[in-house]
């Protein structure tokens, strides 16, 4: 069981301001194949937990262990970022390239892919989210649903086996939500989804945790 442990957070504490801790002795594990949903009130530290996993924030206490190694320094997280895909709450934060094609290619290029391989990845990723034919479009002119699907494509482009999704259905219409449910059905994926949408979580996850007082239950 130990070797398919992907994420292991133990005794994590974190606060943005002194005497105002968001996470207190948080323990959380994700094993290969786990599909976990997290639900909880606003501002309870759900997003913060995902940021800690990606190394975007550093915990004040506790250890972050991912893929079997303790992750402390910025460099430790390079591998984490390549193998875990993170969907941000606000797609506008995630999309900044001049064209859809470059947007999807950004990740693969950063991870050393070049040439035709990148073109193929772009085509394949866009197809998976149902945006084929959008290659030359400008990302910030897309609709909200298209932006979210594009953001999904940019993450899938690096072929991660693990996904962290922060409110993937926020503000989306039903067909787009269905599309995301469809994408998540792919076998072999493990993921953590933060959402207030219980219906969506029931469709996509096996376990649903709640977040209370900085702890996962």
């Amino acid at each position, binding site marked *: 069981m130990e070797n398919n442990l992907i994420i292991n957070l133990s005794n994590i504490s974190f606060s943005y301001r002194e005497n105002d801790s968001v996470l207190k002795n948080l323990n959380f594990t994700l094993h290969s194949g786990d599909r976990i949903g997290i639900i909880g009130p606003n501002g309870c530290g759900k997003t913060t937990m995902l940021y800690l996993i990606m190394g975007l924030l550093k915990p004040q206490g506790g250890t972050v262990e991912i893929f079997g190694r303790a992750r402390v320094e910025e460099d430790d997280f390079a591998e984490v970022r390549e193998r875990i895909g993170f969907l*941000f709450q606000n797609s506008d934060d995630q999309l900044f390239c001049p064209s859809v094609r470059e947007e999807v290619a950004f990740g693969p290029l*950063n991870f050393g892919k070049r040439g035709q391989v990148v073109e193929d990845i772009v085509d394949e990723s866009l197809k998976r989210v149902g945006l084929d034919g959008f290659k030359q479009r400008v990302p910030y002119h897309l609709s909200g649903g298209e932006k979210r699907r594009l953001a999904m494509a940019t993450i899938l482009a690096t072929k991660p086996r693990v996904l962290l999704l922060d409110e993937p259905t926020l503000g989306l219409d039903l067909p787009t939500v269905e599309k995301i449910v469809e994408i998540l059905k792919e076998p072999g994926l493990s993921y953590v989804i933060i959402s207030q949408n219980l219906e969506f979580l029931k469709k996509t996850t096996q376990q649903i945790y709640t977040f209370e007082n900085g702890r996962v239950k």
Partner: protein
Amino acid sequence: MIEEHFAKGDSLIHNIDPRIRIIFALIYSAIIAVTSRMEVALAGLVAALLFVTLAQLSAKHLLRRLAVVNTFVIMLWLILPFSFPGEPLWRIGPFNVTEQGIFYTLMLTVKCNAIILVSISLLATCGMFNLVHALNHLRVPNKIIHLLFFIYRYAHVMQLEYVRLHNTLRARGFKPNTSMHTYKTYGSIVGTLLIRGYERSEQIHKAMVCRGFKGIYWLLDHFSMKESDVLVSCMMALGVVLLILLQWKII
């Protein structure tokens, strides 16, 4: 959104490799800016007009741009002819208009318009994204390019943010007038925009880092020099040589 009126088109100028356009725009602007001879400035203006004609730009948008620049030039005409030392030409009240002053201001006007026309015809026709790519290929430091690109990319996001804030204010019955309340409100808007801009930039940086960004922006597209690019480069270089010869009074 920043409109790129001049970037769309299929003229001779639009088809030149953006790298060549950037290089020659720099050279022409530098020569026109530093020259001490009216003949060279005028020749530069003629060259600029030639570029503009070749680029087949919309006269309406062009004139609008020039009008903005020349508002500042008018300011110069209001001050310089009166304050530049030299032979008095005529008197208006207590002020002397000097011959040198008029000449100097005229020179500035010609130079200013020539440089703007060169920039519009050669740089503005690239479009921002080509410009950024070309600068990248010309080995301009990454940080400068990022700065340029993100200012462009997010200027309109900030504007949208402002419009949204302003709309909510109006919905809450705010009418701007000359009062402390109005000033305070606008102060808060600017403050909010600053903070939101800062937070958004942090967020964007996080998203980029998650996708493996390490400070280098890899390019997907590459430019290639065509035969016609070489030809155009030669023509433009010839123009540069002519301007220099003119400056040194060889022709």
